[in-house]
């Protein structure tokens, strides 16, 4: 690539260039700086491809240069936006281009590596060979091997997200066996499943108005954990999430897929969900864009999202390809998933019992009784107040007639008349249509005089006796009423009881075998034709353009021919198999990106940095690989192993590089970012690992697995925010039992608007977009959470109970062993020994310490 500066330095008369570039910088530089690159164009790259119009400058030909045309208004929009350049400035730029010699040869800097299939290295097969070669080139000596305790702790945190117990450390088997043991530990899936859930932007609520639960998202979460634990081959893992339940049988007509397949399609459904938007086409397009973008960034490491509105500025992804990719989802609908039975019989029984228990309580429990009691109190008040308000009224309305007709014992009309009325009313309400309404209106008009006449002799107030608890509810929950009959307290009480009962129903629902996922739309022959996917001009659903067929990215396949869809040969289900076609292409050994991308992600979790550091962007704008041949070799080995993730872990963990100490000051001088991995990267634990480890060393971690999410208590003074509006839904529920609050963090309910404060401050918000890399911040709020929060304080007191001993010295030794799995050094014994505070305080300090929070 040639920069303007290079060109100018050698070839152009310096003065003219300086003038021209000064003008460009002054008037265009704000938006078209190399960093901002508005519309993908930077004036610093004026000789390279511009955004849509190719190179901005044709040397020697100002009249052909798009830059000049834009400045003159011959192309729109005229630049600079809003304030055209003075004529003499344009002339200066024209003169500059006029004098510019033609470049020696065309600029070609296409970044092809990501799009070409990985090949194994000719001679190297082991990770260490690749790394050692680079160390040698750079003249770097690797760090010393880490000591056993450091290494064992490192592998524990890395694979299961928890420290070893002192016994586990003392009795740790030989290194390779330890790796095997931890990979077989079910806590491995809880740890690595969580990493995947970050990518899958896992959340359990809509994120939008009211932030309501979107369904039983937890079944997808459990599926992911289970898939890691069972070491599901990665290609199967991909296909299941993109195309579960989308398959056909080649031999059986009328084949129905296994409903269990719908569970992993939660991947296509857990994003924030806009239920309230009234423009259906907008909702649909937003859904399709989201799944298209997330699919390509998660599985292919390509940022196709840019191409929703225009051709990708950096990567060879034309806008058309984006819509061809989106077209695979054209027959997909969110929802429509049948209940999918729980596979585990024991769990199914437990779940059924839970549903019954919670339903019973909602129907007859103390909350319901209290609500009925309240309704009983409020009803007479309502009746009296309505009667009071009506006194003096001489003009009766239809509302009064309707009320009169609701009386149990009719005073004016006959029972037969009432029945007739109710039939008309039911018909009118069913559709709400005016033609159904007309007979009812006519009847009411006819009866009004009878009512008015009758009220001259009977007490009109008697009609209010018809009010019932439904009217109480309406009054208590009314939002738009003016002065309410009930006090604010009564309304609040009503709302609270009501939402507590609703909470019980919600909790019951979570134990039902509902599934959050996607299904194919019906399509012909049982449903309507599916409209074709169209390119949307500027990504706007209101501006449909050319129709496209489903197709793979041309940058990879080299062609734009439509994909051969794997649809049903019996033509019974022509909408099935679209996503499956895409999924199989992604999960294929011929796809140059899929294996590299996942290998690089797993590498990053182990080493702290990827070989390509932008793990979800392998494109031109992303990072260049530090060890491309290593990544390629690992990717091929990974595919050859049958996409075996645990085998990949083991290959990485068995390398010498993984076992190095995290200190290497000499190497840091030459390689400050540690790109060459001549030492291990010391890292702070993620929020989940911090919380889980604290509970683990206090001995109180509840190791129960799977099932509906749990609600660790919120800090008490967050109560205001635990409710949606004064009488609205409960945002943070209660648990079935106290110890649910102490389950692993992966099981904590993921409410997008209300993450646990401590988790959020340690960078674990509830994600709404795919998160390929947690940020890692250091803030005073984290310190406050640790110093003053309930979790550390309570668990410190339990740790203290475990560490209790005859002498302070022994207690300090115990705390160190339990929390840090080592003996205190003499200086530490002295430091802690001379501390005058309580053992609880000592435990707190150790849990807050850098040694507890960082893994060497």
């Amino acid at each position, binding site marked *: 690539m040639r920069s303007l500066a290079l060109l100018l330095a050698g070839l152009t008369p310096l003065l003219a260039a*300086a003038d021209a570039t000064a003008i460009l910088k002054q008037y265009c530089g704000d938006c078209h700086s190399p960093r901002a690159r508005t519309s993908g164009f930077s004036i610093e790259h004026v000789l390279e491809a511009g955004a849509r119009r190719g190179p901005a400058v044709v040397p020697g030909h100002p009249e052909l240069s798009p830059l000049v045309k834009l400045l003159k208004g011959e192309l729109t929009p005229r630049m600079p936006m809003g304030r055209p350049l003075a004529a003499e400035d344009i002339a200066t730029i024209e003169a500059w281009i006029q004098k510019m010699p033609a470049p020696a040869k065309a600029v070609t800097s296409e970044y092809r590596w990501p799009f070409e299939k990985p090949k194994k290295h000719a001679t190297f097969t082991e990770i260490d060979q690749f790394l050692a070669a680079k160390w040698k080139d750079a003249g770097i000596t690797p760090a010393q091997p880490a000591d056993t305790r450091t290494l064992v702790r490192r592998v524990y945190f890395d694979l299961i997200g928890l420290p070893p117990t002192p016994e586990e450390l003392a009795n740790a088997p030989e290194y390779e066996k330890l790796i095997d043991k931890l990979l077989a530990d079910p806590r491995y899936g809880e740890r690595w499943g969580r990493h995947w859930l970050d990518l899958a932007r896992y959340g359990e609520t809509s994120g939008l108005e009211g932030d309501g639960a979107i369904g039983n998202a937890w079944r997808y979460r459990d599926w992911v954990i289970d898939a890691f634990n069972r070491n599901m081959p990665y290609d199967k893992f991909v296909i299941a999430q993109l195309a579960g339940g989308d398959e056909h049988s080649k031999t059986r007509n009328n084949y129905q897929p296994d409903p269990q397949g719908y569970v992993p399609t939660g991947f296509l459904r857990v994003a924030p969900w806009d239920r309230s938007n009234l423009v259906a086409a907008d909702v649909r397009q937003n859904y399709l864009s989201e799944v298209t973008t997330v699919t390509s960034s998660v599985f292919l490491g390509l940022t196709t999202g840019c191409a929703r509105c225009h051709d990708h500025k950096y990567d060879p992804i034309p806008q058309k390809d984006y819509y061809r990719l989106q077209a695979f989802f054209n027959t997909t609908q969110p929802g429509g998933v049948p209940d999918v039975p729980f596979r585990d019989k024991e769990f199914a029984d437990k779940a059924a019992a839970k549903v019954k228990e919670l339903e019973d309580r909602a129907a007859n429990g103390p909350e319901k009784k209290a609500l009925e009691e309240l309704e009983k109190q409020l009803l007479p008040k309502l009746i009296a107040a309505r009667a009071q308000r009506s006194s003096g009224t001489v003009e009766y309305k239809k509302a009064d007639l309707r009320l009169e007709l609701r009386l149990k014992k009719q005073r004016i009309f006959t029972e037969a008349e009432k029945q007739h009325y109710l039939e008309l009313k039911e018909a009118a309400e069913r559709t709400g249509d005016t033609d159904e309404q007309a007979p009812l209106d006519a009847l009411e008009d006819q009866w009004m005089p009878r009512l008015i006449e009758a009220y001259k002799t009977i007490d009109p107030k008697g009609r209010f006796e018809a009010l019932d608890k439904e009217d109480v509810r309406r009054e208590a929950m009314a939002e738009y009423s003016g002065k309410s009959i009930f006090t604010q307290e009564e309304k609040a009480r009503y709302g609270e009881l009501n939402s507590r009962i609703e909470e019980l129903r919600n909790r019951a629902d979570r134990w039902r075998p509902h599934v959050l996922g996607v299904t194919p739309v019906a399509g012909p022959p049982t449903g309507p034709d599916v409209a074709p996917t169209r390119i949307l001009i500027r990504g706007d659903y209101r501006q449909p353009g050319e129709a496209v067929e489903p197709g793979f990215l041309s940058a990879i396949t080299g062609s734009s021919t439509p994909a051969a869809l794997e649809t049903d040969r019996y033509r019974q289900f022509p909408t099935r198999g679209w996503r499956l076609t895409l999924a199989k292409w992604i999960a294929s050994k011929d796809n140059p990106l899929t294996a590299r991308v996942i290998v690089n992600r797993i590498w990053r979790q182990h080493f702290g940095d990827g070989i390509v550091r932008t793990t979800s962007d392998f494109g031109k704008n992303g990072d260049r690989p530090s060890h491309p041949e290593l990544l390629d070799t690992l990717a091929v080995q990974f595919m050859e192993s049958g996409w075996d993730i645990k085998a990949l872990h083991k290959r990485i963990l068995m390398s010498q590089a993984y076992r190095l100490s995290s200190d290497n000051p000499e190497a840091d001088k030459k390689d400050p970012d540690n790109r060459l991995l001549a030492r291990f990267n010391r890292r702070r634990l993620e929020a989940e690992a911090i919380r889980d480890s604290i509970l683990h060393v206090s001995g109180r971690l509840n190791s129960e697995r799977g099932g509906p999410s749990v609600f660790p208590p919120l800090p008490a003074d967050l109560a205001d925010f635990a409710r949606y509006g004064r009488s609205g839904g409960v945002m943070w529920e209660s648990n079935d039992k106290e110890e649910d609050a102490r389950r692993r963090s992966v099981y904590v309910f993921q409410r997008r608007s209300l993450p646990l404060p401590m988790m959020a401050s340690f960078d674990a918000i509830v994600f709404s977009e795919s998160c390929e890399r947690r940020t890692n911040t250091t803030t005073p709020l984290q310190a406050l959470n640790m110093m003053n929060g309930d979790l550390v304080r309570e668990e410190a007191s339990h740790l203290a109970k475990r560490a209790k001993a005859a002498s302070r010295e022994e207690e300090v030794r115990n705390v160190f062993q339990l929390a840090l799995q080592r003996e205190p050094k003499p200086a530490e014994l002295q430091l802690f020994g001379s501390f005058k505070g309580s053992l609880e305080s000592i435990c707190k300090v150790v849990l807050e310490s850098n040694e507890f929070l960082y893994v060497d």
Partner: protein
Amino acid sequence: MSSFMSTKPRTTRRQMLFDSYLGLGGLALSSMLAQAKQHHAAKAKNCIFLFFEGGVSQMDLFEYKPELIKRAGQQMPKAARTEGELATFSEAPNRIIPPYWDFKQHGKSGRWMSALVPNLAKQADKLAFVHGIKVDNNNHGPAVYHSLTGNQFPGSASIGAWMTYGLGTENKDLPGFIVMGDRRGATIGGASVWGNGYLPAEYQGTLFRNGSTPIVDLNPHGSLEEQRAELDLLKKFNEQHLADRTNTLELEARIAAYELAFRMQSKAPELVDLTKESDATRKLYGMDDPVTEPFGRQCLLARRMVERGVRFVKLLHGAGGDRWDDHGNIKERLPVHCQEVDKPVAGLLADLESRGLLDSTLVVWASEMGRTPFDNNLTTDKPGRDHNQYGLCMWMAGGGVKAGATFGETDDFSVRAANEEIPMRDVHATLLHLMGLDQNRLTYLHAGRYKKLTDIGGRVITEVLA
């Protein structure tokens, strides 16, 4: 030749790319201990952002439309309704509701305001209005996200996070971005609308609760002496840990963070302690009246925050069913909400001015959408107005704002911009500009793109700049 043109683009770009993407620990440290810079000189250093959830009715407060009075009760004319584009909950006949409150011109600027906001009207000459702002979606959730984060879906960084990211914090003992919610309950989006999105977590808004313990986990459970002793022990222990290691930047930052937290414990309660404020001041904010007390308290706290260098203060008013979403019974509901905020907001403006803070503070009045001129027939006898994503009205005041200015105008029915439609990103570009930030330079690499608040870029509304 300038250094701008002579730098090698590839290395520079790449360098910048990964500075932001990977230098995260370092980034946190630098902005915690040092300050970021404005891109250009600007008067405003701090921002108080007042957000009224639910959709404030522009034609009942700030837009005088005699046509609505003339046509009260008539059906909305089709052409003006721009059928098909205004997706609402409404069904025919869409009868026009007149404003029920008198409009008068106020101040030297002759700004029309209604009797609903009598106190604010007295401050009219401080305000610069923008009319006819368009948001991307006609319902609350997405519209709230769009107005507060620039994107109608959750996951993006909020305005306050961007400003704190760009400008750093002035007072290390307090969070740089503070949010005060409505005590009536959770607001739409909750943490996501004051969230950091893809920015590092240190730019999250910190939620201040009502009462003397504004921040979660602010107070030690034991005595301060006990805590100090614990912290001393922790410090020494951490220092021994540090001494055995290299590459200790992040470890050092964490040691410092505990000391910052310790100071925050005393500075934050001092901040929310209003006992030293004079009766006159409290009265100015309406704290002597139970109706205006809650928002008055928050406005007064906002002033105390900017006084202490908090970069961005966001106040949220309205929650759940009790917000500015007047679909029904607007005649009785709207005055209640106006009364709750009118005096406090006016008091805030007056107080900032008298203390010489208004010049360095940007005050913003915002909501997520406007409302329709016509009834949406949700209740038969008590009409209310529907959502209108084309009719949002906002105002700004303070540092760098052209006081008394107006930009944009809606049609005779207050449905949408009469001429130029103003996309929300223009407003965001303007707010950043007023704080000395350039929308195109305030970027953060995320998922292969330089994210910015204004996405594809907005126009700075120069018409409202001083």
